[in-house]
């Protein structure tokens, strides 16, 4: 049984086929990396999975349920958490407020005009747990816009975690980061994977991060799936070396 599946998923923008007939399956608890050169259709593929736009053909299945025709908001409620290439946070609010909004949204309180003491206690416990998990407890009262890139990314991941996602999709979580911050974010992802057993799909350019973290790797080029396998298999695959690693390094 897989947690996330795409079956012959295709997306065409006019005559440009951005994602071409991709079929893949991610097992529960797996950390899957999607790699490929710029313009390979990785982010488009993410947008199809999260419901940013519908596929031209094919299916998307979350935990056995066909979600191809669900909207982005419905998919979030079914357990799809996402972070973006450019960090999407609430910059003028504190870390605590950011996570609080996410926890309240996940609890279905977004339209509540008042909170009972019982609900407030539950929300507070949820926030504390997530802040601890993402190492942000000491920075809870800082404005997110003031934090380092690494901590902003951690805050974004914290918000996605508040949704108690069944699948966590991370679009280039270490993009634009220095050594130190990349290390910090990679450490967070590893903890979420190993200790908390999240199912994670990530797009990543940093090959050290990919080969250190991933259980399996999927390679996309020009919208098509070139290879799919364990890090060792991918590293040894001549087609991948020719098409991707050979030119990139």
């Amino acid at each position, binding site marked *: 049984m897989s947690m996330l599946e795409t079956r012959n998923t295709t997306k065409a923008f006019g005559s440009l086929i951005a994602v071409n007939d991709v079929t893949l399956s991610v097992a529960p608890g797996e950390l899957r990396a999607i790699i490929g050169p710029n313009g390979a259709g990785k982010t488009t593929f993410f947008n199809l999975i999260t419901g940013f736009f519908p596929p031209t053909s094919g299916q998307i299945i979350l935990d056995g349920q066909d979600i191809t025709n669900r909207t982005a908001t419905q998919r979030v409620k079914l357990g799809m958490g996402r972070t973006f290439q450019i960090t999407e946070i609430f910059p*003028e609010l504190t870390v605590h407020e950011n996570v609080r909004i996410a926890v309240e949204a996940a609890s279905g309180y977004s339209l509540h005009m008042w909170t009972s003491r019982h609900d407030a206690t539950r929300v507070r416990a949820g926030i504390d747990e997530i802040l601890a998990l993402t190492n942000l407890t000491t920075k809870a009262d800082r404005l997110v816009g003031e934090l380092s890139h690494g901590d902003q990314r951690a805050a974004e991941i914290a918000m996605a975690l508040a949704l108690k996602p069944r699948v966590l999709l991370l679009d280039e979580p270490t993009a634009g980061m220095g050594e130190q911050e990349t290390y910090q974010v990679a450490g967070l992802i590893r903890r979420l994977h190993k200790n908390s057993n999240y199912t994670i799909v990530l797009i990543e350019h940093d090959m050290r991060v990919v080969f250190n973290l991933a259980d399996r790797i999927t390679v996309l080029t020009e919208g098509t799936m070139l290879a799919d396998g364990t890090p060792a298999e991918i590293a040894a695959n001549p087609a991948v070396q020719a098409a991707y690693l050979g030119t990139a390094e």
Partner: protein
Amino acid sequence: MSAATATRLESERPKGRPRPPQWTTGAVIWVVLLSAPLWLGFVGGYTALASHVVVMALVAMALNFLLGFTGVMSFGHAAYFGLGAYGTGLTLRYLSDSTWFAVLNGVLLGGIAGTLLGILICRRRGVYFAMVTIAFGQIFYYIAYRWDSFTGGYDGLRGFSRQPLGVGPWTIDIQGNGTLFYYFVLAVFAVSVGLMAFLLNSPFGRTLIAIRENQRRAQFLGIAVDKHIWLSFSISCFFASTAGALYALLNNFADPTSMYYTLSGEIVIMVVMGGMRNFWGPLVGAAIYVVLQDYISSMTVNWMSFIGLMFVMVVMFFPSGILGMLRRRATT
């Protein structure tokens, strides 16, 4: 872009230092408002001017619920303000001599109109949202302007006046006593503003702020963004029409220019000048605007150019508004 600018400004604040608590500003404002009739005469003011300030503060804070706390720009709020005024005036003129009933009708007329139109408006974003709000606003202006026999047309609606208020066994003479009327306006203002503060401190209010900050992130938290914007627009219109109802009582008059888009623009100026990221900012903006208008317009017909100049200077030098600037001073 505005979010980025604001982030930069926030980061100029010494790191890790807490913002001064909001209640200090609130306490100062309430002392000033409650004591106004005592000292107003000494500085050349009068109670009708104070009532006018409070009324405009309410409509500006109502707009700020949408603009400052949901991040959506309406350029048509005068329409709902005007509907509140006409609803109140028409009730007193044709239906009843109960001030309470008239205010209720005014609030409902503007609030319900805003709620229904909001269904159509809330899917638009940015410039389109603003344009649609202007367009709908102008419709009401032309109805009031053209329907001579019912609304008084161009000359405005006359022939009604606020009636003494029945409160249980007592009657409060807000008709003849300007100071009592001021406190009546202030009481309605207090309830409205209290409700707004309550809503903004709820999960619903935080969600609105989340939408202001980042709609995409809000959407990917599973928040129904359009529905929240619609509700915020509706709530904002209810409070704008409450202000309009008080405005009709203040002047015993309702005129079509109170629905015209230039007034919508003036309300936006009050909000921005006072500081739209601040709960009390629009009140400060409204006070400065109304008082300047009153003083300068007695000296020159070109009073608007002075306000314009001041507006430009505030936007250039204190982008977080006058109250935002004062609070920043207090921190550093």
